[in-house]
């Protein structure tokens, strides 16, 4: 449960080695501190923790279409594990996750380029890269569907220009999942770019100057200074990115029409959850599915934390 929220776990990790503060008498300043974190704590309890408990409870019940539920034990979990569409959705979701992580190298590369000394108009570039991230997913999905369109889409025009065949990118089961993944990368890169730019800013210039005196070229400086010193930031970003891509929903909802023959090959766990809970009146099974997804996210996050020793350098 706790590992789903990396900040908590990271804080625990970072605090390792320091002795825990002895229980002090409640002072005024301490009370003030609690008061300051209270809004977050209350928000967390009301909007995260309580729904989590509720979902867990509902996953053992069957719902009436308009409310009311009965306890049915573990039937929902049996249904989830037996359903082939769940496994298919899980596979698709892992593909989204893998593609989604591609946003990180792209963002690191762009961040390194934008941090060159003497580059003008950095703010403009930063804004341009960030705009897709703050654009509504609905608008993003609609525009990209238009770009991908097999009959009049710009992408196909370009392909035809180079002599390649037209394709129905989002309706062909062999390309649809990657077409959506590409849009995911496009729309999230800006977010990670901002994080990485801040991370790179935090690296002392002295290292670069020293390296330059030693005759290290830009590539060498990037791989021996920037990348290692950026690794804590990369670690944070990769966890956030993985969790976000495992929860992919909105782009699929917008870009995949109901009659799309590629729907089985693109459906994510969350879009399957939506279908069960809100269209087919199977809220109980949907809750079980959501809980399963939470466990998967928790497990993968745990793996990431275990692996960080091997590549993350805290300076």
């Amino acid at each position, binding site marked *: 449960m706790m590992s789903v929220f990396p900040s908590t776990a990271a804080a625990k990790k970072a605090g390792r080695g320091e002795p825990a503060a002895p229980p002090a008498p409640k002072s005024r300043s301490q009370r003030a501190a609690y008061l300051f974190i209270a809004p977050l704590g209350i928000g967390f309890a009301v909007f995260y923790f309580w729904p989590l408990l509720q979902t867990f409870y509902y996953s053992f019940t069957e719902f009436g279409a308009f409310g009311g539920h009965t306890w049915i034990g573990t039937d929902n979990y049996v249904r989830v594990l037996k359903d082939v569409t769940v496994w298919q959705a899980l596979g698709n979701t892992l593909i989204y996750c893998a593609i989604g992580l591609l946003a990180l190298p792209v963002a690191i590369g762009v961040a390194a380029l934008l941090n060159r000394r003497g580059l003008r108009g950095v703010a403009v570039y930063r804004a341009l890269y960030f705009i897709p991230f703050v654009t509504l997913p609905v608008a993003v999905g609609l525009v990209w569907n238009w770009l991908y*369109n097999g009959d009049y889409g710009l992408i196909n025009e370009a392909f035809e220009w180079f002599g390649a065949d037209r394709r129905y990118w989002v*309706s*062909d089961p062999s390309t649809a999942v990657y077409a959506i993944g590409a849009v995911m990368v496009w729309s999230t890169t800006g977010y990670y770019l901002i994080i990485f730019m801040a991370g790179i800013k935090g690296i002392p210039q002295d290292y670069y100057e020293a390296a330059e005196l030693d005759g290290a070229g830009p590539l060498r400086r990037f791989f021996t200074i920037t990348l290692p010193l950026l690794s804590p930031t990369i670690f944070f970003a990769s966890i956030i990115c993985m969790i976000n891509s495992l929860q992919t929903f909105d782009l699929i909802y917008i870009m995949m029409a109901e009659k799309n*023959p590629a729907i089985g090959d693109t459906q994510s766990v969350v879009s399957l959850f939506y*279908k069960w809970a809100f*269209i087919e009146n*199977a809220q109980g099974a949907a809750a079980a599915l959501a809980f399963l997804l939470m466990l998967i996210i928790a497990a993968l996050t745990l793996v990431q934390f275990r692996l960080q020793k091997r590549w993350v350098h805290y300076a």
Partner: protein
Amino acid sequence: MRRRTLLYGAMAAPLLAACSGQSDDGKRSGGRTTLSYGVWDVAQVPGLQKVIDAFEKENPGISVRMELTPWSSYWTTLKTSMRGGTAPDVFWMNAVNLQLYASSGVLEPLSGHIKSDRTPVDRHPESLVKVYAYQGTQYGIPKDFDTIGLWYNKALFDKAGIKYPDTTWTWDDVRDAAAELTNPRERVHGMAAEMDRQAQLYPAIHGAGGYVLKDGESGFGDERSIEGLRYWTDMIDRGWSPPQSAMVESKARNRFWSEKAAMVYEISAYSGQYHAVPALKDHAGVAVLPKGRERATIIHGLANVISAKSRKKAAAWKFVRFMAGRKAAEIQASAGITISSYEGTQDAWLRSMPEFDLKHYIEMLEYAVPYPSSKNTAVWENLQYPLLGAAFSGKGGIESAARTLGEQMDRALKEERA
């Protein structure tokens, strides 16, 4: 500034809700009662507004406000708002959802009102009225009906030198014409065989002598039903129709409107939109569906229902009753939106678009099959497109896809009975 306005808005919202909650049919506050009316079809809004204007004129104490929710999210929004107690007082219902809503007790039973107010329900097609009854109680009164017809592009037919479709046409005639009309160089297809259950799948299944749902069992595994589905997939395999993957990105009707498809099966409710395409006005025609093994089309219609949680039921009933009458039907029909279900008002609809021979839509009433539904229709209907998608994209295998669909649908039907 903007943030502050937003904040005021957020604070005012609960207050407004409290105010409207008190009005209860407008008796206590003495003001006008405002009914909310949930609809999904934007094309019908201007015509419906005329009906509402007429109603408000007759009932000065009541005003009706339409709440438009697009089809794709209509039912999810409705279900959520029912749980939250913010559902519209009166809203549109279809055959697919009636049993689910009626059996859950969220609809106001209308039988008592109908009897005491002598409502002319019997003036609507009986088969359609029956769709909106559940266990002997009437929950909705139809406002319109629709059937499926064959649209064809006269200019493309003339160019290919083919006679227009008429009542003598069979599936063989359609196939011959589709082959002739297909012109790959100009990217014109003879037919647009989109995978749509109401306009294409169900009419063809019944046309082939098959069935979708009978005595609680699926008909998708039936040999004749499969023959009906093959009518469509054959046309895709032979290149007379674009594959489904293409029609996801440009729908069948859009292809017809841009004259890239010479024929398409279409629901009568869309006639107004065809009428609005300037290029088509002078050379589009409608014919009855061609005969397969049997003559068949699908009939469906919308009904108005009242939410059981509405606090303005008296006013809501007045509105539903008005909508069930001749006057509302005539206004609706002459606005050209859809075929009013009230007996004898269909002529007004025909006259609204004289360019097309819309009378064929009404002629088909004789052999129209009601739209199939069960208690949790959405569950088995949602199995159809994912399972049939590959076959409708020219990948073949319609036989096994249809049989698998039949088995899964039977399982879903068994589950809803349990």
